[in-house]
């Protein structure tokens, strides 16, 4: 089996935003059961890197491959296998938590209301299931977005600041979810300012300007 062709790899990725050379030849290889912690000061391109890996942003130079194939050639299959949590919780304020989940997760796999409730329960917001997202606190919205990631059952997790707006119990929850995901064979790229207190092995990618 070709060792290099499993997992997610990005090579010499360059991105310019206007005049700024935001990403200057970043490379990494993340295999299943591995977690990559992307850190760096503000403005060093952590979110940009995550967007490149997700396929939303095409880099000026460099490539991203999944299982040996470039993601641009099989974009929809690749994106079906990933779950992306951006800096904002990405919820429609007029829809309830469970409706938000249904419309997002339902595009990736067939889900029953029970599945979605179970995901909301796991992240501690089962009580909010029928509440419109606009009445939820920032922490509750973050938990709902985590439930969405959980419910998608994707092999690749791309999380941008998952700890934002969460209390200590919430941060612990994030660690538990990440550990469980990695143990079950998934891989994750996490952008975070603070240390991820995880018991599984964590690789570090530090970005500097």
């Amino acid at each position, binding site marked *: 089996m070709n060792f290099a062709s499993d997992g997610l790899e990005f090579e010499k990725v360059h991105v*310019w*935003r*206007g*005049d700024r050379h935001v990403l200057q030849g970043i490379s990494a290889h993340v295999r299943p059961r591995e977690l990559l912690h992307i850190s760096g000061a503000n403005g060093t391109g952590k979110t940009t890197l995550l967007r490149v890996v997700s396929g939303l942003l095409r880099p000026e130079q460099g490539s991203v491959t999944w299982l040996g194939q470039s993601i641009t050639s099989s974009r929809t299959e690749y994106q079906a296998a990933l779950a992306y949590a951006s800096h904002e919780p990405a919820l429609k304020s007029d829809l309830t938590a469970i409706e938000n989940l249904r419309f997002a997760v339902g595009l990736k796999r067939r889900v029953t209301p029970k599945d979605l409730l179970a995901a909301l329960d796991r992240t501690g917001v089962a009580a909010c299931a029928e509440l419109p997202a606009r009445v939820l606190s920032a922490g509750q919205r973050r938990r709902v977005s985590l439930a969405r990631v959980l419910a998608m059952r994707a092999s690749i997790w791309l999380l941008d600041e998952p700890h934002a707006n969460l209390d200590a119990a919430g941060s612990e929850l994030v660690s538990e979810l990440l550990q469980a995901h990695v143990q079950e064979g998934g891989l994750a790229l996490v952008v975070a300012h603070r240390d991820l207190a995880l018991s599984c092995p964590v690789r570090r990618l530090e970005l500097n300007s």
Partner: protein
Amino acid sequence: MWTWFYKLASPPYVYGVAAALRLWLFGAAALAMGYGLIAGLAIAPPDYQQGEAFRMIYVHVPGAILSLTVYTVMAAASAVALIWRIKVGHAVAAASAPIGASFALLALVTGSLWGKPMWGTYWAWDPRLTSELILLFLYVGVMSLRSAFEDPLRGDRAAALLAVVGVVNVPIVHFSVVWWNSLHQGATIVRIGAPKMPGSMLWPLLSMWLGFMLFFGAVLCMRLQAEVLNRERQASWVREAIKS
């Protein structure tokens, strides 16, 4: 065969070509327009139907043709830039847009001035002038869109897509306007357009057309140099070029 295509994708190469061609194009344009204007305005006989007024043709018709040609050039450069991600295409499109818009405006103003002796009014919703007006709006849309973005590359790409969508619509718009006009065609409206032309009238017209094309080429070279320098200002070759 494709090597020249890829060479054209290199900004310094294009800058060099533009710098070299510029003066020749201006010179050739001056010659062609000089002959066209002298022969058309002074030497060609007055038209039996339109009198001296028809001489507006020497500026109006080449202007209108060029406004369409430039839009096509802009759309083609945009398509190349979008499909193959060649940034020089965006520079060409950005450089051409104001030139094409100016030609459209010229065609409209001269058309309106021509209309006064023909129709007795400065504007009579002539189909060709109306499509020219819509073309001007399309140009303004592309230029506004480009300048509305803070990130210049996104602005380029958005304007490029709009230019390509517009070029598909230009024939549709023109046909619709002609059809619309045919519904209301008054028998007395004299079409401002080319009368049947003997050689003494035709050659100056063709010369003006050629002159306008060369002029477009020359101004494009000038603007393209500026656009390329601006877009590539971080690159080292630009500092060399500015010093020399």
